């Protein structure tokens, strides 16, 4: 079975927010809320500073705490691709999943259910890339099957140094950042 993930080249990302706009347009994300966003992460001591600009979203973790804590099964892992999704009409809006996500990737949709990135599964099922990946002007985002050694994402991870966010949280995120 496929295991979808993303590889994002932080050396190419300029933080233009095209991915953010594309997601909001494609998924009709309500005003004032975001399924994806830009992070500017600066570390070091002046003048030796290192800045990483990256696009972030739900990490569709292999060990998703939002799924295990859900009392109704609304948060679930769906095949193909083992994508973490929410079924709105099963969600009671208890917000346990929001509290359990170390990436703060979820929010409450004004309709009352927990909302988040879906990896645009409706597009992926038609053979398309997620909207954010499709519009990226610097081609910094790559989407595919992490378990397929011939996929672009697997080859990038094989050839470049990479890291994931908050590995200590133990969620095994499936979005990897090339340094």
């Amino acid at each position: 079975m496929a295991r979808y993930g993303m590889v994002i080249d932080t050396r190419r990302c300029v933080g233009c927010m095209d991915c953010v706009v594309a997601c909001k347009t494609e998924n009709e994300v309500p005003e004032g809320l975001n399924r994806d966003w830009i992070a500017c992460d600066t570390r070091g001591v002046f003048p030796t500073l290192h800045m990483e600009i990256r696009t972030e979203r739900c990490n569709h973790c292999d060990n998703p705490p939002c799924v295990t804590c859900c009392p109704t099964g609304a948060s679930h892992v769906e095949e193909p691709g083992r994508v973490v999704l929410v079924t709105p009409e099963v969600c009671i809006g208890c917000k346990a999943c929001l509290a359990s996500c170390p990436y703060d990737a979820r929010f409450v949709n004004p309709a009352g259910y927990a909302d988040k990135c879906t990896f645009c599964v409706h597009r992926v099922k038609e053979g398309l890339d997620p909207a954010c990946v499709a519009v990226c002007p610097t081609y910094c985002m790559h989407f595919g099957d992490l378990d397929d050694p011939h996929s672009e994402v697997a080859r990038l991870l094989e050839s470049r140094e990479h890291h994931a966010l908050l590995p200590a949280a133990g969620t095994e995120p499936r979005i990897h950042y090339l340094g």
Partner: protein
Amino acid sequence: MRELILTRHNDLIDPFVRVWSWEIPLYLFLGGWVAGMMIINGYFLLRGRHREDLCVCSVLPGLAVVLLSLGMLALFLDLEHKRYVWRLYTTFEIASPMSWGAWILLLVYPALLAAALVRVPPLLRALWPSLDRLADTVSARPRTVRAIGFANVAMGVLLGTYTGILLSGLGARPLWGSALLGPLFLLSGLSSAAAFTHLVARHAEERVLLAKSDNVFLLVELFLIALFLIGLLSASEAHIRAARLLLGGPYTAVFWVFVVGLGIVVPLLVQSLAVGHRIRHTALAPVLVLGGGLALRFVIVYAGQFSHWAG
């Protein structure tokens, strides 16, 4: 130096998580308090002391039903998708503490109602004569009473522990990343229940017994708080940062003044003096214990949401 700037401004999430407001701490407090009432009442039923004129057996079960219902109302008010609340009972998610809690709450009600039947308050007996006959039948059967007592102790332990595990099961918040939250909330619930019974007890013997028990519960609670903090301080960097929220950070004053000082240490001293016949039993200590129990839930829920894995 690290500076992290996000373009995200999601409601309830940014700049820090505050998904749970007053409803959840209140629910956790009432749940723990009811759990304590069930354990204390169950213990008295197991000892066959329901024949005595004690508030434990006549007041606690009925009041616990009311308090638990208020807690569930608070939980319901917190839900964002209220019309789908029935979905809780269409599945059992074995890994979800909240799913366990939903089913435990469903089992707690029959145990409480059965306990309420063992010794029905005179007012209710006068209102419903048929209840009177049923209560007499139940209370005249020692094995049935013991079974009800056992069920109340067992369900009380499950309910009280669950209120803590509900939080510690959410690994994303380092402050909640301790298995001690279950026992801590259970002890706090027992202490609240003992304090309340101390407050309403009509007889000196019952009052002294509950005050003595409360002192033991408060001491164990203090010990568990110390272990909780030591556990966080000896874990990862994120856990140490979380502990510092209570040790010099923004939640320090409220935690040490209202939870530890006024909620545990002062009532412990006052009740020790009262038990030793140096001062009279007053409402001061029980009221402080109840306030401390409520403050504990508020501090842990709010500070926990503030804690984060990211530096």
